[in-house]
């Protein structure tokens, strides 16, 4: 009683543990076929599980409805425009999903003898070559599972190479516009992060780098285009400065979507770059992963690649585990192959011409949006952008409306909000990355909504502060969540 409410199609849905009945089950299991072995017979009883507390007991129908309802409370790229800056939320082609599900890949055990894995090894080898071509580098490892994992891999290779040279450089120069992962990856790789300021143009100046570069610095870790959506115009010169003093240039390739077929990072002097397949190469973000973060390197770092490395002898591909200078392994097996398959299919769908078009249109979309919105929202760096642009809430401040309010109000208009309060160098940042897969019509709708919101901020700011209204839940008490952490369901 009292469990029915007129919530319409946005149904209430309890936790899976709060559903079902004792003895219910949502699956069928294969036949026993052999005699059931009583576990006490073969395993000492003090090593056996006695009881379960909170495992669900539900039918298949209940499972299906439960997760279907949950999915309906989510917003994905397939729901609409998802302009989350720095995340490249482009359309995820369905063909790629089919490819990853092909059973000759999905049911393939990682320890299957190489002679039976020639197809997948060839595909991985080709994907490495494609990524090397796109970034202008000499070799690629596909092992890292995500962008941050790739950063760590790259930095560890730099560390290993420096120690081999007999150098103990301890610092990494990281610009103030960097992703948080750059800083934490530096620490994890035993380096000390040293900040470097971007200039009034929003980019790094060669002059500044020259001042801070010395024999203590192992690498400069730069993002290009940077997180303000700006191209690092002086990177070529900066790389020369870093190299002259014996350092490496690491590029966070999270924003590669702006550069494909336009410029190669390797030509700009970059020595290591990680590529986020789940951003630039259209593989879905999965509600927070899995992604993949292959790392591309220049010659000097090749000996340090994680093992195994895919090599070829004549027509035969094999995994080479015997590489004395390798940093080791970053994870078990060879990487997120299921994700690689999707990225490979994407590159083959687009070709060189298509990928160039992708970058052109991604940059066109961002510049169009920037132009259309800059009279309504403060644009801290008013210069041509690449794949994304960053506004602030400065014009709305006087109405006591914040970036958070603007973001939440966008939800009421049916859009996913942009990235907010990042990069940190911009106070109250609203970072918008439309990606190339959005049409002009869609952009115009977003622009219209943003302009309306700017107007509402002036005329009816409460509407923004109360937003969102037309959702499953309204603003949530995050302070309560952190003060009294409740991180799991418990049986009463």
């Amino acid at each position, binding site marked *: 009683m009292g469990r029915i409410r007129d919530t319409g199609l946005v149904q209430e849905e309890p936790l*899976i543990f709060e559903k079902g009945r004792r003895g219910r089950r*949502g699956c069928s299991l294969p036949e026993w076929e*052999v005699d*059931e072995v009583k576990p006490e017979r073969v*395993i000492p009883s003090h090593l056996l*599980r006695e009881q379960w507390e909170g495992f669900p*007991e539900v039918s*298949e129908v209940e499972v299906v409805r439960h997760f279907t309802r949950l*999915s*309906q*409370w989510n*917003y994905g790229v*397939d729901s609409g425009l998802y302009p989350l800056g720095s995340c490249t939320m482009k359309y995820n*082609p369905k063909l790629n999903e089919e490819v990853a599900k*092909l*059973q000759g*890949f999905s049911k*393939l*055990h990682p320890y*299957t003898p190489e002679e*039976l894995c020639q197809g*997948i090894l*060839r*595909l991985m080898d080709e994907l490495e070559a494609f990524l090397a071509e796109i970034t202008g580098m000499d070799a690629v490892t596909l092992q890292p*599972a995500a962008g*941050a994992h790739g950063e760590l891999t790259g930095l560890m290779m730099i560390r290993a190479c420096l120690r081999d040279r007999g150098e103990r450089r301890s610092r990494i120069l990281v610009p103030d516009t960097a992703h948080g992962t750059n*800083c934490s990856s530096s620490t994890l790789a035993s380096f000390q*992060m040293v900040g470097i300021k971007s200039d009034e143009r929003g980019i790094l100046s060669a002059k500044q780098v020259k001042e801070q570069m010395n024999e203590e610095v192992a690498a400069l870790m730069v993002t290009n285009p940077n997180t303000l959506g700006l191209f690092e115009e002086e990177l070529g010169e900066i790389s020369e400065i870093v190299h002259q003093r014996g350092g490496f240039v690491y590029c966070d390739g999270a924003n590669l979507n702006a550069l494909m077929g336009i*410029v*190669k990072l390797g*030509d700009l002097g970059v020595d290591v770059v990680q590529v986020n397949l789940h951003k630039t190469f259209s593989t*879905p*973000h*999965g509600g*927070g*992963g899995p992604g*993949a973060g292959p790392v591309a390197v220049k010659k000097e770092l090749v000996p340090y690649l994680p093992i195994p490395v895919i090599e070829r002898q004549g027509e035969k591909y094999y995994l080479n585990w015997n590489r004395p200078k390798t940093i080791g392994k970053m*994870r*078990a097996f060879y*990487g*997120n192959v299921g994700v690689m398959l999707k990225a490979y299919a994407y590159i*083959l*769908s687009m070709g060189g*011409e*298509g990928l*160039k078009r992708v970058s052109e249109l991604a*940059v*066109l*979309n961002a510049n169009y949006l920037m*132009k259309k919105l800059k009279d309504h929202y403060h644009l801290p760096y008013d210069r041509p952008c690449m794949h994304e642009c960053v506004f602030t809430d400065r014009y709305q401040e006087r109405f006591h409306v914040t970036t958070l309010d603007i973001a939440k109000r966008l939800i009421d208009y049916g859009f996913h909000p942009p990235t907010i309060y990042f990069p940190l160098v911009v106070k109250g940042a609203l970072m918008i990355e439309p990606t*190339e897969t959005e049409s*002009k019509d869609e952009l115009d709708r977003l622009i219209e909504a943003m302009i309306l919101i700017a107007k509402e901020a002036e005329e009816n700011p409460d509407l923004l502060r109360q937003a969102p209204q037309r959702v499953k839940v309204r*603003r*949530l008490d995050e302070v309560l*969540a*952190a003060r009294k*952490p409740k*991180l*799991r*369901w418990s049986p009463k």
Partner: protein
Amino acid sequence: MKDFNRYLPHTAEEIQEMLEEIGLEKVEDLFKMIPPQYRLTKLLNLPSPLSEMDLLRSLESLQSPFYSSFLGGGAYHHFIPSVVSHLASRSEFYTAYTPYQPEVSQGTLQAIFEFQTLMCELTGMEVSNASMYDGASSLAEAVLMAYRITRRRKILLSETIHPEYRRVIQTYIDPDHHEVVLIPYLKEEGRTDPHSLFHHLDREVSAVVLQSPNFFGIIEDLSGISERVHQEGALLIIGFSEALAYGVLKPPGLFGADIVAGEGQSLGIPLSYGGPYLGIFTTREKFLRNMPGRLVGETIDLEGRRGFVLTLATREQHIRRERATSNICTNEGLCALMATIFLSCLGKEGLRELSLKNLSKAEYAKRLASEIRGCRIGFTSPTFNEFVLELERDPQEVLRELRREKILGGLSLARFYPELNNHLLVTVTEMNRKEEIDKWAELLQKTMGR
């Protein structure tokens, strides 16, 4: 019209309109800020674009053939109910990103909250994060976390831990700050040598790391270990690669483990030649703030309704930056969802039954193998769904002969343990039909007789 334009909606007219709006003439003008000497003048050297049909055909041809398989060692063939892939293929789940905006991400958030609960139950621990990359990197993060807590440099690592996991731990730690002591296994029993373990245990040790079931498939006897470890002020970390074992085994949490970190691939995630998999990471509440990775917590909204948010983010890289507990950002969210759906379908009884079926079939295969001349069960300790077989012939040759009959008969251990160069790791799950096991044993007997 080019085929790739199906993903790119712009018409030539629209492009012109947009350029005009920006005040540019042509698309190239968008890139004026790039110094001309770096701008590419040629197209990237990539294959020409393929249509959907042609692409699918060419990829189909790269697939591996199906063999009957007795391979395991950290990746397992298990049946995945249709429900799992159908529900995880709902694009509201898989085309979303990290749930930074909780009002439009309650689906992902509630599912992760359920996942965290299930992982606590499975491992017998108090808190779970929202997932790590895989079992190996999760275990490596556990070692780093123990260092953050204890500030001690020595790590005792059992030799029975998956060799690839050990290698990942060795890669993650910095030899300048850490020292690894490998604890050998008992040659007869195949489990970690407790005498050696306790011999090396002192007040310089930050963590003792064991795996159960271990790489040989053996269930380590974890009783009485945590007491000794805690006496010295160190932490006990338990890894695992076959999560299904905990359907029948007492979870590490009940043996006093401080961190449990392992692989969840067995819980509804396809093999996919090694990834993406699912790193599981659980610990005690008192270590919550030292944990790596994302956490979802329950809270209420403005109107008092229950809702879920990402919480305790002050540990994480996007807030804490160089002082974060880890650099992890993107994790394995969709795999965590798959495991949640899988375990929901199985439920309490189903999980136990599935575990018992694995145990029973492995025991059956073990019995058949033990009756073959020239074959010996490698170790005496109890196992779950894999076991080591010692052969009187070169295992590589034996495997090659089985391969002729389209059977992958096991994993040769020589690569990982040179002293076990006559040994095979054999894995038997519910996927191996009885007739398949019989055929495997029959062929094994035949090859051994040769």
